[in-house]
């Protein structure tokens, strides 16, 4: 016998909750969240920032990469409560408000560094972080491959992404 159809489902959860206050893309955000909510789900479901993609949810694919206090991090391996008090940046903050693309985004377009685009937000957030953190930039093949090693792409075969990193360095005056 199949389980009986419930007459109503609860509209609220019994999960323990906590208040979080953080900065997201420069904007102050305060919410009450389930303590088990992942930062990736917080960004997508609570804030509507669906540019952060969720692939594997165990830290392998890199699609959910965002910046936490300026450093690239997996939002699927971070609880929203862990991000309390931090400054988070997502892909939505990367282009200029007038739509002008960031050099890394422009380079992905120039070099055909994406096809389906699912991995791209994580790729871009990771590369942008490395551009911001590393002086000088090592643009050897080996270093670029290492830079991209935590982000999986199933379309491009990576070569165009490697080219895009070099192109981005040119566009940003870092080559």
């Amino acid at each position, binding site marked *: 016998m199949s389980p009986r159809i419930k007459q109503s489902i609860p509209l609220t959860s019994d999960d323990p909750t906590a208040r979080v206050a953080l900065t997201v893309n420069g904007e102050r955000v305060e919410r009450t969240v389930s*303590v*088990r909510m992942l930062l990736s*789900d917080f960004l997508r479901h609570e804030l509507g920032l669906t540019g952060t993609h969720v692939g594997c*949810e165990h830290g392998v694919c890199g699609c959910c*990469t965002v910046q936490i206090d300026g450093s*690239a*991090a997996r939002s699927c391996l971070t609880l929203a409560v862990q991000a309390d008090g931090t400054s988070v940046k997502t892909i939505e903050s990367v282009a200029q408000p007038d739509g002008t693309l960031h050099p890394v985004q422009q380079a992905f377009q120039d070099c055909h560094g994406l096809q389906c685009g699912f991995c791209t937000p994580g790729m871009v957030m990771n590369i942008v972080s490395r551009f911001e953190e590393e002086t000088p930039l090592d643009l050897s093949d080996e270093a670029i491959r290492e*830079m991209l090693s935590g982000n999986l792409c199933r379309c491009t075969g990576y070569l165009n992404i490697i080219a895009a990193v070099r192109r981005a360095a040119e566009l940003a005056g870092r080559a």
Partner: protein
Amino acid sequence: MKPSVFDYASPTTLDEAVALLAGHDGAMILAGGQSLLPSMNFRLAAPSLLIDLKRIDALRGIVVADGEIRVRAMARHRELELDAAAHRANPLIRAVMAHVAHVPIRNRGTVVGSLCHADAAAEMPLVLTLLDGTVVARSAAGERVIPAADFFLFHMTTSRTAEEIVVEARFPALAAGAGWAFNEFTRRHGDYAIAAVGAVVRLGPDGRASEVRLAACGVSSRPVRLAAAEAALVGTSLDAAELEAAGQAAEGAVTAADDMHATAAYRRHLLATLVKRTVAEAAARSSGRAH
């Protein structure tokens, strides 16, 4: 792929954290979460209470003093990797850390968390074992210092008791004149090791090895010192035949069963090759430092 329900606490003092841990069956400690969160997403770990150490200022930072590198519980992998004083004290550590997952993971994951997670194929437990480092565990009863040899017991199992929080790991500095090397075999960059070997070698004035330390991960249920290979090499000139013999002596350390990554026979072959290669590289650096 979502964690099961748990309670959450983020105390501001270590004493509070210790009391919370002692007072709750099934409580777990959260530092960087880069091993724990995947386990929780898969529901392999389901803590009743998660005690987040992030607000405890006393657990931050890295101190290099008195011949050792003291890594506090909330120090991220990337902090240790980029720490100039730690690199001067022991250059082996930065070289190994390049193999620990990827930069975005190292930005969040902690060294002490990795040691406590105790994956038998993880790199940092190997380093602590190789260097005869220690961890400091705190409970209501006080602090105790646990040598690496007594800390790692089995897959994901350490001698930390349920009431203890590991507050610090201590990695000894490299002795003057010592050479070091690390080699790992994986299918993909950033993966856990199928087999990895670390070595520290010192040469005497006669050019013979006066000290050889060897440790491996990925080949057993915990990181292991390769005592038979060490004994085979001390006092020798580390020539090709002696390295070959040491590689064969190391093979006995492989206790891992055949798995999806490699057969035991393949791991024995890998381990012998890595031992030869790693000792030779460490010896070359040792000579370089001595001159």
